[in-house]
């Protein structure tokens, strides 16, 4: 049995408190009116002029403004005002989605291992179950967030705003799908389905520990297969609802897979990191370096899979250059160049070169270093998916963004390690347990 060390508990509380203070600061420091933003903008323009810094998009805006009346200055300030108002909300949303994605991806991986009757991963099942324990908590937090959004506490989802929809024929045509009640019902259905499988699977594996026959195991196998069917449909729709609808004028067919790739690679990385932590504390003596080698192979493979989907989506849109599709990447390329291109280095080049060697994949500190880079890279990935639609050119990774991550990370660590301490770390009733304990590659 694992006992939640008091040090880690204090650490997670500290993260939550620091994060909460930062998030509160983020909400309090948003400008109160358009007038404040004008002052801010003038200040920043002045400081830019002093430093003689001018980059292309800004020069472009200035050139455009000189041709039009002073009215455009007002609209510019109003845009910036909405963006700045959205900033703490978006920061919280990115963090909420990122940690929810870790546990949802871990659940998908867990179901795949059961449905595929994998022999190697049985010793890691309790770690995965611990990580998926965040799922109900994260789902409630996200759902509350969506309810607040639909009550117009923020303007992340512009299609929820009746004024915007009234003047936008494109969104009106999508209103059959993109309307608030249906959105919330869909979110509730996905979340209920995922949580139901998670709780059911947990109940069955705990029952299997003391069972004399394999009936729990068989039920788990069947429910995992059924869950995977549900998951692939719901995950795809979830990515349209929760992320793609932030840009309601834009659409992409492989978006669901792209989000899934990001999800599964960060989830496997989290499984590896938690396993290495627990093994370092001496709780997983049955996990050997061949298990870590397999996890690192999955990290490597899914990193490349993510890149493949990222590039497929980017290249098809770049190549055809159809205006209504390409704006998505134009805004990302002009205003988010460093995170947009930087995440390719973090999520592809770094894991490719570090995890290619078979020997390196057995060395824990290599896995930890690459894992942290991958997790950071996929945070940036989610950031670049969400931020351009909600805060536009006003993005910055500052106090609201970092403290949102700290807050949710604190909750995540607290929930996951509490769940890990609730059950033995070896699922001893599984018929493949002997094979998994002696797994050697």
């Amino acid at each position, binding site marked *: 049995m694992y006992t939640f060390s008091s040090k880690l508990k204090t650490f997670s509380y500290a993260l939550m408190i620091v994060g909460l203070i930062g998030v509160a600061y983020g909400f309090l420091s948003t400008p109160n009116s358009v007038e404040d933003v004008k002052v801010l903008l003038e200040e920043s323009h002045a400081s830019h002029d002093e430093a003689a810094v001018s980059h292309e998009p800004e020069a472009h805006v200035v050139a455009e403004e000189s041709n039009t009346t002073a009215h455009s200055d007002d609209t510019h300030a109003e845009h910036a005002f909405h963006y700045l108002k959205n900033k703490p909300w978006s920061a919280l949303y990115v963090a909420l989605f990122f940690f929810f994605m870790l546990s949802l991806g871990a659940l998908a991986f867990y179901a795949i291992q059961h449905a595929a009757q994998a022999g190697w991963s049985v010793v890691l099942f309790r770690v995965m179950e611990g990580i998926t324990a965040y799922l109900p908590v994260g789902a409630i937090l996200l759902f509350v967030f969506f309810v607040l959004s639909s009550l117009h506490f923020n303007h992340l989802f512009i299609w929820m705003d009746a004024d915007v929809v009234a003047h936008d024929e494109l969104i009106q045509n999508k209103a059959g799908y993109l309307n608030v009640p249906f959105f919330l019902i869909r979110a509730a259905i996905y979340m209920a389905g995922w949580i139901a499988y998670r709780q059911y699977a947990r109940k069955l594996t705990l029952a299997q520990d003391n069972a004399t026959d394999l009936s729990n195991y068989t039920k788990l196998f069947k429910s995992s297969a059924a869950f995977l069917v549900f998951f692939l449909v719901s995950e795809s729709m979830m990515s349209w609802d929760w992320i793609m609808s932030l840009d309601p004028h834009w659409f992409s067919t492989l978006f669901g897979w792209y989000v899934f790739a990001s999800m599964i690679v960060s989830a496997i990385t989290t499984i590896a990191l938690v396993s290495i932590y627990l093994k370092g504390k001496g709780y997983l003596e049955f996990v050997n370096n061949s298990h870590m080698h397999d996890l690192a192979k999955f990290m490597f493979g899914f990193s490349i899979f993510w890149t493949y989907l990222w*590039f497929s989506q980017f290249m098809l849109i770049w*190549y055809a250059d159809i205006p209504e599709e390409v704006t998505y990447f134009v805004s990302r390329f002009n205003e988010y160049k460093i995170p947009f291109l930087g995440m390719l280095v973090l999520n592809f080049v770094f894991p490719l070169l570090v995890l*290619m060697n078979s020997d390196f994949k057995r060395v824990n500190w290599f896995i930890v270093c690459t894992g942290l880079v991958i997790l950071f890279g996929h945070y940036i990935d989610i950031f670049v998916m969400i931020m351009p639609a909600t805060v536009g050119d006003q993005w910055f990774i500052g106090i609201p963004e970092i403290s949102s991550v700290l807050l949710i990370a604190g909750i995540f660590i607290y929930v996951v390690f509490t769940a890990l301490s609730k059950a033995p770390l070896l699922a001893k009733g599984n018929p493949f347990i002997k094979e998994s304990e002696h797994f050697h590659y």
Partner: protein
Amino acid sequence: MSSKVIQAMYNDDDILMDAVKEVRAAHHHIEEVYTPFPVHGLDKAMGLKGTRIAITAFMYGCVGFSFAIWMMNYMMIEQWPQDIGGKPSFTFFQNMPAFVPIMFELSVFFAAHLMVITFYMRSRLWPFKEAENPDPRTTDDMFVMEVAVDGNEKELISFLENTGTVEIKVTEK
């Protein structure tokens, strides 16, 4: 140096593995082991070094990648930078996404094919090559371990007989 070898035959891979370990422990030199299929762990038991073919494959992949970049840059950007459907052929990076499929395929092509050719050369395999197996049964159901005779031949034979062999031949190499 005597050029005599003893060929000890086995009919089971588990017995063969044990025999290899015993012979190695007794410090006799195993010239070669012939098996009809890959025996898992035999290379470790014989003390063979790990293969470096993956490293060569990586280097060949780098060659293919560089070749693709050089070729596309030379043809599409430097030699005749034509406007084809509005694609920006001013610099390599502006048009790079269109080259990536070729860069990828050539990396894989070079890595795969040159690695296979390396394998053939290092293991001396080619068409019309004369087969080297000491006994035709080794391709079917028999395992043969060749041990070099170094010193007392009779002692070595009686030692091998105790390792579960089903047949022993002494041949000149």
